[in-house]
């Protein structure tokens, strides 16, 4: 993947988030405060605008750092710092590479997950975006270890994210605003996990990986 592929990833993610904003907001209204879709659509919109301002010949790392900074600046809520940190960490991990391979992207995705865990303090099973992101990273790494190329690994990550998100439905939330509901949070899909699925699906879409 080169810099324009990474920019295409962010643009595709913005499309998917905007198209699904109502659904994300409805999920959030059930166990949070009902603003996730609105906020994320605003944040990714700002990321797309930031991409337009990047100079020609930029690197994949700078694309992700620039998008992450814009998301931190414009999203608000918990999702802004978390998604912004995820992208900035991934971008910093890619360094100056002009065309990271499947393994390098895997390292960056793992760094994104670590960044989200550190900032938010959530682990797997807490009913947050970490459940989807951790499942995606594991699926991606397993695919690469099995000899898959980047497109197939990206598709595996998208599938893994969807499974990880689905697994949040029966969970009782232990982090974020849904945690205040206690047992009443069970039976609902976590909105942060749902939006994480969109980000990974966007990656699979732009790399053209087959399921």
């Amino acid at each position: 993947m080169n810099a324009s592929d990474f920019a295409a990833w962010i643009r595709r993610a913005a499309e998917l988030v905007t198209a699904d904003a109502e659904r994300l907001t409805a999920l959030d209204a059930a166990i949070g405060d009902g603003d996730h879709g609105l906020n994320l659509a605003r944040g990714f919109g700002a990321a797309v605008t930031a991409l337009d301002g990047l100079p020609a010949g930029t690197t994949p790392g700078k694309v992700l750092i620039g998008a992450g900074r814009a998301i931190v600046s414009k999203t608000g809520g918990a999702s802004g710092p978390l998604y912004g940190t995820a992208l900035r960490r991934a971008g910093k991990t890619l360094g100056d590479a002009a065309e990271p391979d499947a393994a390098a992207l895997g390292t960056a995705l793992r760094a994104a997950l670590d960044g989200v865990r550190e900032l938010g303090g959530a682990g797997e099973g807490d009913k947050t975006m970490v459940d989807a992101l951790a499942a995606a990273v594991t699926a991606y790494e397993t695919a690469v270890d099995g000899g898959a190329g980047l497109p197939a690994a990206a598709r595996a990550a998208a599938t893994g994210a969807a499974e990880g998100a689905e697994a949040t439905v029966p969970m009782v939330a232990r982090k974020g605003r849904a945690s205040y509901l206690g047992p009443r949070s069970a039976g609902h899909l976590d909105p942060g996990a749902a939006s994480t699925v969109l980000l990974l699906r966007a990656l699979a879409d732009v790399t053209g990986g087959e399921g």
Partner: protein
Amino acid sequence: MRKIINDPVKVVADALRGLAAAHPGLRVDLEAGIVVRADAPRSGKVGLVSGGGSGHEPLHVGFVGHGMLDAACPGEVFTSPVPDQILAATAAVDGGAGVLHIVKNYTGDVLNFRLAADFAKDDEDIEVATVVVDDDVAVQDSTYTAGRRGTGATLFVEKIAGALAEEGAPLEAVAAVAREVNERTRSFGVALSPCTVPAAGRPTFELDPGEMELGIGIHGEPGRERVKAGSANEIVTAALTAIDADMPLRGSDTLVLVNGMGGTPLLEQYVAYGVASSWLADHGVTVARSLVGPYVTSLEMAGCMISVCRLTPELLRLWDAPVQTPALRWGR
């Protein structure tokens, strides 16, 4: 729900424009999204910055002024402000003595203020201390949640820490008194109706007419438990019993806030305060100061929240110190 708005996505900016017109003593920077005391930065004075989602007015923008906040950063409705806003406010009020961030314990607020404090230290070389307010007793098991929420105690913290900062105390002392107020305050809220975020256009939760929600936060989120709607006696007793169970009140001198959530008339808030006053007297609690009104609201949510702070003579002195803000003003 009918609302007096022009454009649901511009409601915060439009309200800030109105705030600026109504209160020329405030500097409202629409570009940066911050509200700053006209005389900031004051050399040698610790700057106080707070912020959070909009929809809780007068918190925080109505508490900017002499003896209270130096700046507020209003986010979108029920959405924390972003780090750029917080950083701009921090830089605007830094008079060389450092800046205190007063943050309500909600994940979004905590994360955005943490990033902003990092940026302030790294990029601007401003010393920042942070106090996280978490007074809501409805959240019982903070090991398995994001922790207790910041609610009514925020007003007490902003007023008392603001008074000490106004006297020229150093950052360490201002942060310490802010933490002390938070530790000595407990709150419990009850909702009788949900509220509607303008941009979302529908209520944040559904509540049947015969029901009430116990243990609410202030972001329109549902609470811990839904029960049959009760009388003022039952509502106030439930709130004070929960507070007293968490922090025994007997024998204390207290500061009591009966806070309307936005949709409950002042008439009913005074009914609630009357019940609270009797309950406290019956339980051996002295009310040294009280405040009744909509100070920490949740849009048009109906309901009330009770906050009780166990005062010390020093905290009482600071509470009584002069304050001049749009929403709180005495002694000056």
